[in-house]
């Protein structure tokens, strides 16, 4: 593996024609929401810049991120990026195994110290010194820290690496911890979703390795190009929301007519992702299009946020108490009303009594 080769050279070695390469550049530019002139910039960058290696680590996870990634809607983009990545290290996708595979890691650290990108799928469990996730005889968290020490930047794939996801749900017995809370001295790009959309993943990684910089991030470290809007903002059922037309039950007339799923618990209004625009499986469909509400899988702690089937949900913060905001508030207001009525009655009684005693005194 010559160290100064470019992406373009690697792609050509993989039998990708120049025509396909240019197509990939324009599709990626379009996918990232960049202007047409960026297609040329992409091509130029990939032709001239030395290839940035990508190391893809797996912690506690279900591999749905990888499953999503290899189904990238534009197969070319997926293949290209995938072949670029699997050249280096991805324990799920690479051919190498065992000691040979682990050696690749050390080689990368030696050759590309401070230059490679660390893509993390899943997160490390910290309880019992990380013993809940052992790789090559060592806790995963040690491998993560070692590789993070020498990397340039980190991509946190999926909700596991970004927020913690299912394995960090209450009571989180293994203390599964998102990447940015373990590695604090490197820039972390969060690409949440369970899994993230394939085109979002290829878009983010291509941007980073082609332009050698982080995409613009929002307050919570997510790329603005894909996570700056809620599903609700671009949902094709939004007109039904604004009109006040809702699915009340999954088998009613509203469901057949494709009304808004807000009342059956769609989390589109509180979920930041690109599902309603990029969609899934080559733009085939996405949850709301298939008639089911969004679960909010790209949001922090979505697993502990209460029902997937109601708009007003439980508090994640209330120690697991199964009570929604309306229930808690309704009980408080009811208690206040009852208390006020009881106090009014008691006041009346005390007034009559004091009047009686005054009358007795006057007599």
């Amino acid at each position, binding site marked *: 593996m010559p160290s100064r080769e470019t992406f373009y050279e690697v792609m050509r070695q993989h039998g990708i024609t120049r025509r396909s390469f240019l197509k990939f550049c324009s599709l990626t530019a379009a996918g990232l929401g960049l202007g047409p002139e960026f297609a040329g910039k992409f091509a130029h960058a990939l032709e001239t810049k030395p290839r940035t290696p990508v190391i893809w680590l797996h912690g506690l996870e279900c591999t749905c991120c990888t499953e999503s990634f290899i189904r990238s809607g534009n197969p070319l983009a997926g293949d290209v990026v995938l072949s670029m990545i699997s050249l280096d290290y991805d324990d799920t996708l690479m051919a190498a195994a065992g000691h040979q595979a682990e050696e690749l890691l050390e080689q990368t650290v030696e050759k590309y110290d401070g230059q490679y990108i660390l893509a993390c799928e899943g997160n490390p469990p910290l309880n019992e010194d990380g013993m809940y996730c052992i790789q090559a005889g060592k806790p995963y968290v040690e491998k993560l820290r070692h590789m993070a020490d020498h990397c340039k930047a980190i991509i946190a794939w999926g909700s596991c690496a970004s927020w913690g996801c299912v394995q960090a749900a209450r009571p989180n017995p293994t203390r599964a911890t998102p990447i940015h809370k373990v590695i604090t001295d490197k820039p972390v790009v969060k690409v949440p979703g369970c899994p993230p959309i394939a085109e979002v993943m290829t878009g983010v990684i291509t941007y980073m390795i082609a332009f050698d910089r982080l995409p613009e991030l929002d307050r919570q470290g997510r790329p603005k190009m894909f996570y700056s809007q809620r599903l609700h903002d671009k949902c094709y059922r939004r007109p039904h929301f*604004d*009109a*006040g037309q809702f699915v009340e039950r999954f088998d009613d007339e509203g469901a057949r007519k494709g009304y808004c799923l*807000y009342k059956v618990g769609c989390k589109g209004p509180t979920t930041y992702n690109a599902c309603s625009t990029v969609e899934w499986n080559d733009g085939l469909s996405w949850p709301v299009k298939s008639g089911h509400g969004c679960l909010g899988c790209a949001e922090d*702690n979505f697993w502990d946020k209460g029902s997937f089937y109601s708009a007003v949900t439980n508090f994640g913060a209330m120690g697991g108490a199964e009570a929604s905001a309306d229930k808690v508030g309704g009980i408080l*207001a009811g208690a206040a009303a009852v208390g006020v009525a009881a*106090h009014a009655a008691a*006041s009346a009684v005390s007034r009559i009594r004091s009047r009686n005693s005054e009358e007795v005194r006057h007599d």
Partner: protein
Amino acid sequence: MASTASDSLEKRHHRKPLYVFEAPVRIWHWVHALSIVVLAVTGYLIANPLPSIGGEASEHFLMGNLRMIHFIAGYVFAIGFAVRIYFGLVGNKYSRELLYLPVWRREWWRDLFGEVRYYLFLQRDPPHSDAHNALAQAAMWFVNILVGVFMIVSGFALYGEGLGLGTWADTWFGWAIPLFGGSQQLRMLHILGMWLFIVFSIIHIYMAVRADIMGSQSSVSSIISGWRTYKD
């Protein structure tokens, strides 16, 4: 016992009416109250929409209108709040009572516990206060200042989600979303805040009416005319 009660009655008898609530405070009170009613009704319906309406989506804009009314009432609430804070700084000494709790003053605590004892029927007469009694002041501070600020911050943060990233509402208030555990969580806390306002309103109206009937000084009419008058 009987003689001390009649002594205090005697004292009150000669008390002159006192101008406590200046016009800006009175106007704010009623604008604030109205905005809370509108916000609570529209807010409840945004979280728990009415049954679906039929026909074409293009013929209706029910949720859109409810949200718009909610946002306008939210602006009224927030701007009114800011004006009230300003007036608290320049108005009379009673207008300042909403802004802070004098927790460092021994008498304030004595009055607070006196009020609690009064409302528990353990004490015949409440401690004297001109504008707000200590208990009412504490309740008003917690709900109108503490919960009120939370509702303004969370409300504009959620409003900023619709306006979009980088807009003024997102820039100034968007930080509240991750701080309170995400968009859904903040919505639920915003709803809980509404319920706290409802609880406050129930007790506030009850106590104001009760004080008017049972107390020795005017209560409901004072927030209309501004004057505190004394009975007997």
